[in-house]
């Protein structure tokens, strides 16, 4: 879970014009670490795909522009 529904970790920040309570909750550090790791892994996967694509283009002797004309992406 990304937040803990625990009164000790809830701060009531309800403005006077709000019809229901608004709380500020702290983010679970364990979940945040997992989320950060996932985002890093996703970024690394995108980078790895780009490197692999460039390697293929190099072997074929194609520029990125030529690859886009040929493959459409």
């Amino acid at each position, binding site marked *: 879970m990304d937040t803990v*529904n625990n009164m000790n970790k809830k701060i009531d920040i309800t403005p006077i014009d709000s019809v*229901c309570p*608004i709380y500020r909750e702290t983010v679970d550090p364990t979940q945040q670490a997992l989320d950060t790791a996932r985002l890093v892994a996703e970024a690394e996967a995108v980078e790895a795909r780009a490197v692999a694509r460039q390697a293929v283009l190099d072997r074929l002797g194609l520029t990125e522009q030529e690859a886009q004309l040929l493959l459409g992406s």
Partner: protein
Amino acid sequence: MGVPSGYTSAQVVQAVPVPKGLVQIIPTSVAVTGGSATGSVDTNGNITFALATGIIINGIFSATYDYYHMRVSITACSGNDDNVEIRYTTGGTANSNSSYQGHRLDISSTTVTASAQTGLAQQFIGSASSTDGDTPFGLLDLLDPFASRVTKLSSNWYSVNNSAVQKSVRGNSIFDATTSFDGIAFRLAGLTGPTLSGNISVYGYSK
């Protein structure tokens, strides 16, 4: 008003049906994450938030409706192409089970990419970037989030990234378990720092 002569109180309650069509729902509470995050809910149920890494809207799904419509309008955000994701919540706790799955149709400029994903711990609905201004918006339709049935989501999202590339995401997804949810959590960039400001409103549809 008292109970009219000849009627029981139960009969009087039954005589007041849920209004037909879309009815705006007022959440029981809203929680925001982020050090400077703020929020409020007006008398109609319009939710306003600012500088939030995440927004958790509690007490919006119930047995009264099975179909819900949500409008998300982003007025400001930080970062670039950061993921906007949702998780369903019960009692304010987001469900991060690997039960989210669905189809995505991503349009980046004129390039269309389709994908099918399973076993996710959250559902991606779009992206947001700091130069968007008041551009990003999302329209979400949910079926059976409260009922003990698979929760279904159909979503549309539009944004423009910091390189002025238009992006749209069309998604059809499910939470592949019969968990009953009463709320929904929006997250930006996995709650790692970038923030969202904007408005959300939730409607129930009565047949």
